[in-house]
């Protein structure tokens, strides 16, 4: 069977066939015979010729987390779905105008007022979590349309903090 994976976001193709109890791997033009076994939940042992590899594998619904010889990789199946999910990260222009809380946390300080003009990368507010302060910055040159929070508020993830509008 042919596989296409995004390994740390880089495409990797590999072919794996089962033949008489052993596996045949084709990687680029190289073909190896491999002895592959799940030896324990989350642990795979691979012998290729005399080389021994111990691989750790965890997964959630969309990703595999793989550790080989002390190197961690994130592995995703390269499907259309994953491609489009990837594209979604960028977000629309509209999204950019609503500044959201990056995570549950506490608003420490709001530096701006409604109707105030702001520049791109200007610090608008500070939110704290896990003992770190995060500076919330403006993504545009524009002005503050609405402020939804004030210092001391606890906010949930994705909660809108501030709405901006483009320069008219």
């Amino acid at each position, binding site marked *: *069977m042919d*596989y296409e*994976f995004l*390994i*740390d976001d880089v495409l*990797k193709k*590999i072919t*794996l066939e*089962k033949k008489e109890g052993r*596996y045949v*791997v084709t*990687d680029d033009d190289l073909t190896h015979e*491999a002895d*592959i076994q*799940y030896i*324990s*939940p*989350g642990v*795979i042992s*691979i012998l290729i010729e005399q080389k021994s*590899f111990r*691989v*750790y*594998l*965890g*997964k*959630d*619904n969309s990703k*595999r*987390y*793989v*550790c*080989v*010889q*002390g*190197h*961690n*990789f994130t*592995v995703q*199946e390269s499907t259309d779905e994953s491609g489009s999910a990837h594209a979604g*990260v960028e977000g629309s222009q509209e999204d950019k105008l609503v500044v959201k809380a*990056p*995570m*549950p*946390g*506490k608003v*420490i*300080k709001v530096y701006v007022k409604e109707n105030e003009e702001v520049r791109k990368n200007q610090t608008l507010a500070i939110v*704290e*979590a*896990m*003992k*770190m*302060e*995060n*500076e*919330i*910055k403006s993504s545009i040159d524009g002005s503050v349309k609405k402020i939804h929070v004030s210092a001391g508020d*606890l906010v949930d*993830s994705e909660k809108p903090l501030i709405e901006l509008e483009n320069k008219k």
Partner: protein
Amino acid sequence: MFKKILIANRGEIAVRIIKACHEMGISTVAVFSEADRNSLHVISADEALCIGPAPAIDSYLNIDRIMEAAKKIGAEAIHPGYGFLAENADFVKRCEEEGIVFIGPNSKAMQLVGDKVRSRQAMEKAGIPIIPGMMGILSAMAEYKSEAQRIGFPVMVKASAGGGGKGMRIIHSMKDLETGIEAGQREAKSAFGDESVYLEKYIEEPRHVEFQVLADNHGHVVHLFERECSIQRRHQKIVEESPSQALDPELRAKMGETAKKVIQVSGYNNAGTVEFLLDKNKKFFFLEVNARLQVEHPVTEFITGVDLVHQQITIASGEKLTISQDELEQKGHAIECRIYAEDPFNNFLPSAGKVFFLKEPSGPGVRHDCGIYSGCDIPIFYDPILAKLIVWAENREMSCQRMINALDDYVILGIQTTIGFLKDVIAHPQFQAGETTTSFIEKYFAQWGGKEKPEEARMIAALASAFDSQSKSFGPQVLTARDVAPSPWQTLGKWRLGGGN
């Protein structure tokens, strides 16, 4: 001896204290916030009580709730661990008033050493060398400015109530002073409930060398030698070792005696740490007393063979120290690496979420003080420390090798950690040469991006993934994403460290 101890903490340190109690035949009580029902300390203790919602201020920092829990469950003593209430003199006083033994110093000593400005005054009076700087707290910004002028830039802003890098900032010129002091005050307020900050001369490229001390309730004091903790990132220790490469027996003896004097002057009891800065000319300055068990205490346990948590409990129960200074010696070399839930490839942003797989390193001379397990959640509410890896070997060279090997043998899947970064720190030629100063990370790791991963490992990762998708039995279970906090940190801007130990 106590029959039941409540541990007012969470994570690896709570688990470590629970183990010590069990070895001493003492029953343990964990307290936990609503976010920590499934945390390792809850599962490891004999009894466990929920003390409130996730934010620390409503649970682990809530003195009333902890006192109530201790009374309800019949705990005779409270071990505070590090962080949270460990250096809160009000909490200590409350314990004293309500007849529950606080496993740590008395409230008066805690108050003195906790007030960095007052303790600087006391130490100067006793002839202990201190860093040039302010001897009092000011209220007006103008006064800070004239003091900064007097001391001379660069200066350090420090929290009077502080410790462990909280509220700390280096200011290089007058124009940065005001924002720096304000930020320091804000962080100090949030960390300690006290916004007082003061200024000190900034010593360039010093080593951070601290002495572990034990003092019983009967006036006996011993020091257990030094730990060097120069490897820091944003004033936060990440690697600690003992012995320090900078000390010779004479300097060690002198600093050790000074440390004991600091403890005596402070009227301090139980375990504590006296921190010094050591400059390029091997001149040392008293920095502060850490009035608690330190994160890095296992380093000292390895080289002296003394179990500091056992000692803390024994001392708190009123027994006399049975260790004398003459008997103590440093044997071999120990290193600790702190394992944080942070992404070293992305400006060390915190990385919360689910741990899909954990393999703990092990072997001769390897100790892993661990607060996590396969399948646990790392909440966003608390310190990002996951575990500590400590190794011991006959000499520093083998200790480094053992550490690198153990880090190689250490697997955490699902969240980002500092394991790979630490491996490169220990393997760095300047570290191997013992050339460690507090500027080390800034100097050699500012541009760090990890090594290129070998193509062979990438191929094996692909192969294993292909095998896993064919395989039906025996693979890892898909852990549900339920309870996994989103991890949006990666997409964000600049972060500032506001805490730690």
